[in-house]
């Protein structure tokens, strides 16, 4: 019950933010292509859902900072989240340093692996490899996931999935509402 209440307030907040963002794009005319429009809408939606978290989660911060890297989105971000678009410098530095660390770790691992070659590859080894590769894939999917350790990755994934579901739900409802509102005109 409590979760449902939380969920609905999340949805409302996301809708509010999203509409705020969409209002900036009322200049759609015949010339804007579908893809452009889609990108604009998706961007508004993403920033909207990220700002419902108020920078408490890493994926939301990463999403907003990615968006703010492109200068033209600045007004959008500021309008939706109601606060200054974050400076990307700090994130960039952290990312650089972590990449360096990762690279050194990887080379170390490669060297270690070359030294010890197991003649028989056990099932556990295979599973470990699978888990590793899939963790990497998950890190790529979740925004800002590259820098996280496994524990926080899972935590972030949970939050991200919840937010994605909210996003899909609200956008889907908008879609069905617009269905009925838009009068049909023959092709």
């Amino acid at each position, binding site marked *: 019950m409590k979760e449902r209440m939380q969920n609905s307030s999340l949805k409302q907040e996301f809708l509010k933010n999203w509409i705020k963002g*969409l209002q900036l*794009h*009322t*200049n*759609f*005319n*015949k010339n804007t*292509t*579908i*893809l452009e*429009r*889609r990108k604009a*809408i*998706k961007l508004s*939606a*993403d920033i909207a859902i990220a700002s419902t978290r108020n920078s408490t989660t890493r994926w939301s911060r990463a999403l907003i900072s990615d968006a703010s890297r492109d200068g033209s989105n600045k007004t959008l971000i500021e309008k939706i989240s109601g606060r200054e678009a974050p400076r990307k410098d700090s994130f960039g530095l952290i990312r650089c340093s972590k990449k360096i660390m990762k690279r050194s770790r990887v080379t170390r691992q490669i060297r270690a692996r070359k030294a010890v070659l197991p003649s028989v590859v056990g099932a556990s080894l295979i*599973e470990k490899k*699978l*888990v590793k590769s*899939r*963790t990497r*894939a*998950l890190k790529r*999917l*979740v925004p800002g996931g590259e820098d996280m350790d*496994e*524990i926080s990755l*899972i*935590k972030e*994934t*949970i939050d*991200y*999935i*919840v937010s*994605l*579901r909210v*996003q*899909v739900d609200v*956008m*889907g409802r*908008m*879609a*069905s*509402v*617009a*269905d009925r*509102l*838009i*009068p*049909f*005109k*023959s*092709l």
Partner: protein
Amino acid sequence: MQPTSRELLEMNNLNPLVSLREIHNSQMSTSSHFDPTSSHDDFLDQMFSSVPSSASSFPWPEDHAPPPCHMEEQSTALLASKLRQQQISNGAAKALMLQQQLFLSRGLAVNGLRSPSAADIGFLNIPHADQDDVVDGSCYKSANPDQDASIKSLFNGFTGSIGHSSNQPQHLLHSQGGALQSHKFGGAAAPEMNQPAASGSSGGGTAGQPKQRVRARRGQATDPHSIAERLRRERIAERMKSLQELVPNANKTDKASMLDEIIDYVKFLQLQVKVLSMSRLGGAAAAANPLVADMSSEGGRIGNGTKTASSSNNNDGMTVTEHQVAKLMEEDMGSAMQYLQGKGLCLMPISLATAISTSTCHSRSHHPLASASNNNQLLNGEAACPTSPSVSALTVQSATIAANGGGETSLKDANSVSKP
């Protein structure tokens, strides 16, 4: 939450032990019951030192002692397991309530047992109440300052846990709990205790996560590294469990396939957002500019119904197709449709797709979102049967296409004939 739950487990294991000690001491009628020499742990010492040395007589009749003994073990184990489960399911409220419960029992031990009748009734009656409800009820009651009522409700809580006893991990935790107790009682264990505890007594069990000294399982070292490793693994396992509840079709046991499911689900959701944002173009644009050309040019999303290539290939193929069709749609609807037909796909309003798929896979117990896990990249938000032949047609999650309701259906009819 972690530290508190650890403390909880400590106390969890302690409190029934305290009352068990009382039972033993009443049995053996030793004068000083809280024998500090038999306790090996710091926290136990703390517990016992807080208890007044002179307690009132234990009016529990002797013949009632053995069954409570037995049940106490179970209740220890069960409480521990219950706590674990709640820990995992993030029942912070419930954990707090259990803590309350334990605090109350502590107070109970301090003040001596005043209402043994309640205890007898509690232990002998095993109501089949729902575990959680009983706990909740008891904890709510226990908030009452009234001691007797609280004691009674506390025992109700215990019995609730006992009533839940017959199920799964009982014998495992039984031996674990038994081991723990035997270890803690040391030599002072009564013969009844020794019997069930004998099995697990050798290595000692780590029933909980006590902060100070960790009793390792057989063959495991107690050095901090492995402890940290274990903690880390347990934390990950907890989180994976809560993730399991979110992701549909997540009944997989091993980590690799769980991760696979998670990845598929995240990809699916992201894809849905992408598609919905394309469909929303209709709403946003049409509101501003209600020209027909706009509406007809709004894209449909293309999903491949055939289970051909691997997911990555599918993905690339679809984006390319998608872009192509979008471009074509802007110019001329007909050419777009021809292009689709060439690929063996067709457009269909999502409501119809939903209707078809739900009618064909009526018998399936699939979760609708599980379609993502079939690596189909089918973009049915609602439709669930990628394998049904009718849904090898393209499903378009576009409200605008559906909005172009009537006319589009005629188009669809023409095209639905040409299903692969």
